[in-house]
């Protein structure tokens, strides 16, 4: 039987090269279109569900400002210090919206005694912070005398996020978000589930500021459940297994220290200017316009005209809508191409049976069973699909390597292609058998006589 199948395939490819090549090209390009559509569809669906999870039924605004370095310098200067602080206070107390400043950053660990020491000199629990970077994030570890840990600085109410839950310990209290003195700071922290083997609730992790050598103690007050996640201020899904969660605290003292040094340890989170530009304003959809109006009134009141609001949710909606549009366009092209290929394929099946009626008649008088005939027909179809898939792979590899087009192949798209190919192969086999059964064997044998 293998010999007969081989002959069939050889005859098809050699004697009907043009048809074979056309079919293979048609299917390859159809499959590319299907691939692109499915990849877009999966991406759009993921974005859609992420947006739904992240935004829910609320409107999110992001605060931004017009201008570059000189604007930053001016807005963060002493001249504007009071205005910025007023704006910050107004944002935090507005009844129309929630102020949220939760963002990812690194927690830097320094050796309190000597910043020139290598990482070998760090106390063991600090070195274990590297544990957090085992999964491809080692590039964060850029210096021998500093250790970095993935951290999330959170606003109050972080525990209200949908997918965050504690496995042990307790949430931050309101007072945890205020630091009244730069001396002997004790900050409560929550750890991701991956740190359970290294630390326990009540552990103290010592840190120090490199410039002023002030001690900072991080006190572990609990652990998050495995795979807790949230969407950060850039709307990126962040799984917190390997993160340290730190309150995004306010200070009750001047961050420009007596010796005029700038306390950079806290600056990223401590500086009010940073807290504004990293913040989100969250309100109900009905209050969106009023919240925006109120925000601009606050800007006017404080003469901070450089700031503005970006409506994240409407931007995301536009983006999702464009993704959807692109997916639909690709889908239409894919359907059209698949239809075109299937029409060609059906014509080929029909033509093949008509042209080879005599041969099939000979097979039948020689005692071919319907099962064998079925296998023969399937083999014919599979030849086309295997060659199409090979061309598809070559094209994907070449285009992707040339950075021209990556139409993406994943388990999902491969499954769909496999289903299409199987259905068409079965169709070809059943259609062929049906046609042959309907024909009189004598007619088949007398073909071309």
């Amino acid at each position, binding site marked *: *039987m293998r*010999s*007969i199948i081989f*002959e069939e395939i050889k*005859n098809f490819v050699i*004697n009907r090269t043009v048809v074979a090549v056309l079919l293979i090209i048609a299917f390859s390009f159809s499959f590319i279109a299907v691939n692109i559509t499915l990849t877009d569809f999966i991406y759009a669906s993921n974005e859609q569900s992420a947006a739904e999870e992240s935004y829910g039924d609320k409107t999110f605004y992001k605060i931004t400002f017009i201008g570059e370095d000189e604007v930053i310098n001016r807005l963060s200067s002493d001249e504007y210090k009071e205005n910025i602080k007023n704006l910050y206070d107004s944002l935090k107390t507005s009844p129309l919206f929630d102020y949220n400043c939760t963002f990812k950053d690194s927690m830097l660990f320094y050796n309190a005694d000597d910043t020139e020491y290598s990482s070998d000199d760090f106390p063991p629990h600090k070195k274990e912070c590297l544990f957090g970077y085992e999964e491809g994030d080692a590039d964060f570890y850029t210096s021998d005398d500093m250790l970095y840990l993935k951290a999330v600085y959170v606003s109050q109410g972080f525990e209200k996020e949908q997918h965050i839950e504690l496995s042990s310990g307790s949430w931050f209290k309101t007072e945890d978000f205020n630091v009244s003195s730069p001396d002997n700071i004790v900050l409560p922290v929550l750890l991701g589930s991956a740190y359970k083997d290294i630390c326990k609730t009540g552990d103290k992790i010592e840190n120090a500021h490199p410039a002023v050598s002030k001690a900072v103690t991080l006190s572990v007050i609990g652990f998050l459940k495995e795979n807790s996640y949230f969407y950060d201020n850039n709307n990126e899904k962040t799984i917190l297994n390997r993160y340290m969660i730190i309150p995004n605290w306010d200070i009750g003292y001047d961050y420009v220290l007596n010796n005029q040094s700038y306390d950079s340890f806290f600056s990223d989170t401590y500086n009010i200017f940073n807290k504004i530009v990293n913040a989100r304003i969250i309100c109900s959809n009905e209050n969106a316009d009023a919240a925006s109006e109120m925000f601009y009134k606050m800007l006017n009141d404080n003469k901070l005209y450089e700031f503005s609001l970006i409506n994240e949710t409407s931007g995301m909606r536009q983006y999702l809508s464009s993704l959807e549009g692109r997916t639909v366009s690709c889908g239409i092209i894919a359907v059209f191409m698949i239809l075109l290929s299937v029409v060609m394929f059906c014509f080929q099946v029909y033509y093949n049976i008509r042209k080879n009626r*005599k*041969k099939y*008649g*000979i*097979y*039948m*008088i*020689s*005692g*071919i*069973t*319907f*099962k*064998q005939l079925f296998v023969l027909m399937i083999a014919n179809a599979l030849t086309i699909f295997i060659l199409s898939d090979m061309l598809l792979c070559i094209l994907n590899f070449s285009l992707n390597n040339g950075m021209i087009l990556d139409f993406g192949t994943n388990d999902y798209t491969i499954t769909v292609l496999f289903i299409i190919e199987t259905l068409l192969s079965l169709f070809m086999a059943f259609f062929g058998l049906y046609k042959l059964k309907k024909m*009189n*064997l*004598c007619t088949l*044998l*007398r073909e071309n*006589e």
Partner: protein
Amino acid sequence: MSLLSLENITKSYDKKTLVLKKFNLSVDSGEMVAITGKSGSGKSTVLNIISGIESADNGRYIFKGNDMLELSGDKMTVFRRENIGFVLQHFALIENNTVFKNIALPLYLKHEPKKVIKEKVVAIAKELEIDKKLDKIPKQLSGGEAQRAAIARAIINQPSLILADEPTGALDEDTGLKIMRIFRKLNKKGHTFIIVTHDPGIAAMCDRTIKIKDGKNI
């Protein structure tokens, strides 16, 4: 000993055109029987019913004691493969395949081992004097050689019965006679033949002749 018998076989197409009307036929093992009649008389339909390509509307068809009208689908196909060889007017060879592959076709379908296939094909090709043509394709053969290749394919499974539908119809007289001599030689070795022909000369070379007219025995 009776190999097959058809009793009161009736066959119609579209329930209108009655092709066979209570047709009877009995063939013994080792016989060489000719069926003659004019075009459209129902000769080929008789062959189709015997081979199981078509089934009768009424009557009985017994082959080696089995009721053949009860067989269908793949059972009939396997019966055909094991018991019947076909020789047709226009040889019915696959054009792109070599003579070897054409002859070996029934063996491929039976999943015979390669070595066995080769032995059997070469032996039968030698017997029919086409062993030097095994690597040729049908287009490169003369009519006689092509028909011998078809005969080789028909008998490679050692079937009980060989059905020949106008086997000499596409050949010149001399070649036709050579083919009939081959049939006779095979017949003497025990193969049973039913030959459909409209040529009285060919019919005369058989053991007996069944005449058919308008679907009836005459």
